[in-house]
């Protein structure tokens, strides 16, 4: 469902176009309507860009928590350890600590 400029904005815009003098309040409404309309167009353009250049969810950069980052370091370190140890060696401490 697409958004439209508000009803109040539209009526202020029509009155200003008819040449009716605007009160301060109307002036304010008109200004707000212009801003509404601008943000509406910006939003539409932004959506178009997002749809055109949409990145699949799997490729988006995920912001990780500090704990998850530390976990990544441990996983990486463990890989380095496994690569450096004797192939026949089995983890001994894991069972001991359990």
């Amino acid at each position, binding site marked *: 469902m697409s958004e439209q400029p508000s009803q109040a904005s539209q009526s202020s815009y029509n009155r200003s176009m008819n040449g009716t003098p605007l009160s301060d309040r109307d002036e304010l409404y008109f200004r707000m309507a212009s801003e509404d309309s601008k943000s509406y167009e910006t939003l539409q353009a932004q959506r178009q860009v997002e749809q055109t250049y949409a990145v699949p969810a799997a490729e988006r950069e995920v912001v990780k928590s500090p704990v998850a980052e530390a976990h990544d370091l441990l996983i990486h370190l463990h890989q380095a*350890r496994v690569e450096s140890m*004797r192939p026949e060696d089995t983890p001994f401490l894991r069972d001991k*600590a359990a």
Partner: protein
Amino acid sequence: MSVLKKALTLLVGNTDDLSYLRLPKGRHELGKMSERELIQRESRIGRELFGPIPKGHQREFFCLDDSTCIWYESYKDGTGKEISSTTRYEIQGDKVLKAQEGARYSYLEGKELENLLLAIKLYYERVMRGVYGKDPKASQPRV
């Protein structure tokens, strides 16, 4: 006399003792080490991360596997009785569970959590460089 030895004699003179050309023992034997030995090497670095160890204390800090770190500390009290404590830190999703003897469990929070995460980062950097001879910056995991 081998060609290499002849060349060395020309370069440095005496070639009877070539022990200085050998790789440092630790690095040379890295490929043959057991997991236990590697963890002991890691712990030598890990125990230094938390400042000076008080005299008479023994401290170990190492990562047991890809989600668990162990802190061990022991010392003798005034009567000569040995006091020791082991703390296990387990990463569980976005939390760290602290497990101590006597079935005491709690999730780390605040400063204690910050300190442990910092220690893991330092441990990673120093162990990767000091034990596995890898540049921690170059070999950062892709996340």
